[in-house]
């Protein structure tokens, strides 16, 4: 262990052997110790010194162990599963746990095809025959794959990769997966069937599901009996999925042509009768055992740990953060012309005045306010972006809904315009109940005219509500003069806007709903959501050069932190508790 440590850098302990490239990567950014032969006592003694822990499956991270982890903020396990970590205990201590769920996908998919082909071409027996000095190609005739049917039970990440490869061999693929949508099956060019139909039709059956009580012994005597005597079974998923006694009986009775197994019910090793069977290929749990998978897992985890500290290591005096620009996404539509104008102005001035307001989600940073600004920065090709960060439970954060005032447009013309849209219809409604009706019947919005008449805008069946709403709002924004208001009293508004034609009232959105929409990749219309954020930070005037520079995120955030500290010390940060009116907007 080095004697000195950079006191600014978070300290990381790597306590299981991980790929050397990942260690090197961690060392570039963090203060790393590698101690892979620690006893439990030694680990308990050392853990309080560390901010992060990186392990594989060997180190079991229990609640007990975490009691000693006073500084620990993140645990990275460089394996696809989390069964070696007490995740609940970690969360209770506010420790983030990350892993590499996808790292073994290709390794397992490739082994599956490898075993399938080895079985079809009888490779182990071909090899031993030749090594015994025999030359008997005729006795070792194999089976072709082209034109055969592969049945995939469990169509998740691994099953899909297996399907892609099998299709390249000209195989037809049947799948059995309870929640598979027809669209997904179509997209993957596979046919979804029930388990028994799959077993009866497949020349090869491969299993790719997790072991849970419902899947235990999924393939037993009854299921094996459905398979063709010429069929082969492959299991690279979980041992308990197959009833091994039933499998052995089916093989002995020649009701199954062969089996290839990489996993076994007894984790300590399979029964000799099964692995020594003349029509079984058995490998000792090597499905995820590739150097590539180990490297991929370690690198994925290393990156997550590095990012974690790059973003959070500094206890911010203000909730300002520099984040990767590609992680920032809007929740509402924006006007491309305004984006272009702003991008041009920012380029000329070379500064970002006011940072966009974002909310941190699992998928990145959702812009609450500042879609135009954040899009302009992305358009300028800046790798990083300065944002003010809120979380969904920030106190004082409120979401209100803007209503739209449509001005200088004749009622009949407006009704014609909106009534003529393809995916909505306008229904004249009662002003007294329209608000409840909107909520109850799922209208998109309602129009209240100055003459007191009210029309509910309803989407036609099978129309995506968001798409319809976006088309509706852009239709009137394009032709009429539109303003925004939080007031829904038409009488009051008429005094303010004498040329007003109608008010468009939208249902009230919740923060959760907005996040849902944004995460699904859709966008709300521009100018409906109004986030009221406490303590908005203005006039940061950050030089775009800082964001553009090719320096690690961690360094930029540390620089930002120092700059804010200096400003604070020099009394250059001023806080106003009062809500304010600005007259130059």
């Amino acid at each position, binding site marked *: 262990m080095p004697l000195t440590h950079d006191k600014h850098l978070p300290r990381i302990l790597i306590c299981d052997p991980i790929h050397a490239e990942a260690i090197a990567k961690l060392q570039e950014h963090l203060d790393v110790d590698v101690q892979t032969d620690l006893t439990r006592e030694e680990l308990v003694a050392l853990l309080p010194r560390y901010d992060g822990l990186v392990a594989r499956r060997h180190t079991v991270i229990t609640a007990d162990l975490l009691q000693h982890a006073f500084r620990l903020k993140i645990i990275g396990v460089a394996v696809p599963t989390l069964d070696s970590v007490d995740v609940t205990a970690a969360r209770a201590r506010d420790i983030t746990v990350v892993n590499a769920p996808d790292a073994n996908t*290709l*390794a397992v998919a*490739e*082994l599956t*095809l*490898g*075993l399938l*082909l*080895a079985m*079809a*071409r*009888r*490779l*182990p027996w*071909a*090899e*031993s*025959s*030749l*090594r015994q*000095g*025999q*030359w*008997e*190609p*005729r006795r*070792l*005739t*194999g*089976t*072709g*794959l*082209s*034109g055969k049917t592969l049945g995939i039970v469990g169509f998740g990440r691994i099953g899909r990769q297996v399907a*892609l*490869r099998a*299709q*390249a*061999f*000209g195989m037809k693929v049947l799948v059995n997966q309870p929640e598979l949508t027809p669209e997904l099956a179509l997209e993957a060019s596979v046919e979804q069937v029930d388990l028994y139909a799959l077993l009866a039709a497949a020349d090869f059956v491969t299993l790719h599901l997790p072991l849970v009580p419902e899947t235990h012994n999924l393939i037993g005597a009854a299921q094996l009996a459905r398979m063709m005597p010429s069929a082969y079974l492959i299991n690279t998923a979980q041992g308990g999925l197959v009833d091994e006694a039933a499998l052995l009986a089916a093989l002995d009775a020649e009701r199954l042509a062969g089996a290839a197994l990489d996993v076994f019910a007894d984790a*300590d*090793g*399979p029964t*000799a009768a099964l*692995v*020594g069977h003349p029509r079984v*290929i*058995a*490998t*000792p*749990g*090597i499905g995820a*055992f*590739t*150097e*590539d*998978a*180990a490297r991929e897992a370690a690198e994925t985890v290393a990156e997550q740990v590095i990012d974690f500290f790059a973003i959070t290591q500094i206890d911010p005096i203000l909730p300002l953060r520099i984040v990767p620009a590609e992680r920032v996404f809007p929740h509402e539509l924006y006007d491309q012309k305004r984006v272009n104008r702003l991008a041009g102005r920012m380029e000329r001035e070379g500064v970002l005045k006011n940072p966009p307001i974002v909310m941190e989600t699992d998928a990145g940073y959702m812009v609450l306010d500042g879609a135009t600004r954040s899009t302009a920065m992305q358009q300028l090709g800046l790798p990083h972006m300065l944002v003010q960060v809120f979380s969904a439970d920030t106190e004082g954060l409120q979401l209100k809904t803007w209503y739209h005032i449509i001005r200088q447009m004749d009622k009949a013309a407006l009704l014609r315009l909106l009534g003529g849209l393809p995916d909505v219809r306008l229904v004249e409604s009662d002003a007294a109940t329209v608000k409840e009706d909107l909520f109850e019947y799922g209208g998109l919005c309602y129009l209240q005219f100055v003459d007191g008449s009210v029309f509910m805008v309803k989407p036609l069946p099978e129309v995506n509500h968001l798409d319809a709403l976006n088309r509706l709002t852009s239709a009137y924004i394009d032709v009429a003069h539109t303003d925004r208001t939080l007031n829904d009293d038409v009488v009051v508004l008429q005094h303010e806007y004498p040329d007003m034609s109608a008010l468009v009232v939208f249902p009230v959105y919740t923060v959760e709903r907005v996040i849902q929409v944004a995460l699904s990749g859709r966008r709300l219309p521009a100018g409906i959501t109004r986030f009221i954020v406490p303590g908005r930070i203005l006039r940061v005037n950050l030089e775009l050069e800082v964001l553009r520079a090719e320096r690690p995120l961690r360094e930029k955030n540390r620089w930002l932190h120092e700059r804010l500290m200096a400003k604070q010390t020099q009394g250059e940060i001023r806080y106003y508790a009062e809500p304010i009116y600005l007259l130059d907007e």
Partner: protein
Amino acid sequence: MTYKILISDKLGQAGLDRLAAMEDVSYDMLTGLSKVELIEKLPAYDALIIRSGTRPDAEIIAAGERLKVIGRAGIGVDNVDIEAATRHGVMVMNTPHANSVATAEQTMALMLAVARHTVPAHNSLAAGEWARSQFVGMELDGKTLGVLGFGYIGRLVARRAQAFGMRVVAYDPYVAEETAVDLNVSLLPLANVLAQSDFITLHAVVTPETTNLINADTLAQMKNGAIIINVARGKLIDEQALAAALQRGKVAAAALDVYQKEPPEGSPLLDLPNVLHTPHLGASTREAQDRVGSEIVEQVVDALRGTAFRNVINQSTIPA
């Protein structure tokens, strides 16, 4: 009229079924005939269908008074005296593509087996060991496959390898650039293919240029730790040189289905732990055998009827 066909080596059922369904053809399958017996029987037949067992030499061909076609169910025609056949106006044909899919599949089977140590892992487990840490493998995804000889089989292999996320490069001086481009494969000079490839697979025919294509010199140009697969012809590899490269670790592993001499008694490659051996099984699937049988039957009958002349090796014998 009825065409009479003699089948003198064992032919798959699929081919026999096809013949039985044809009204203008009759056949006899007589295997294990001596040369004398063959010379005695042959004058009654219009065509002879063989595999590798029957060796029609000049004397036999001369005896075939009515003989118009010799059909070889398979690729290699070294057992036929083609010159004599040409002299007697007898067409010699084979089925060059019937085995291709089986060969491409065997290539992928060997490549995946070598990458994951499947056969030694199986042997170790069958022997009662549980030694998984000895069998850390490599993935095909993201690796480069070099195909030496980019004909029909090479292309079938390329398509399968691409589905595994491999980048495919090829060397073949007789293939047009566009063919490779269409298949998303880069045609490169031999030295570049050797230097870039993590896996090298051979799919060339044996000619003076390709004999011992893999030799001390070409081995030296390969990436350290490359893996070699040969499901094509044994004569493409200088076995002494490959054995030396495998022992040095220059070549990490090899999978061989064909040998200079078959069976490969005394080959220096037999005792090496990092070589996977199979006894010339590239074309050995039931499907391929069926296809070889039905294709040769169709070709021979079409030629007798004069309706089509496919895969004729001595083209000058094709009737005008």
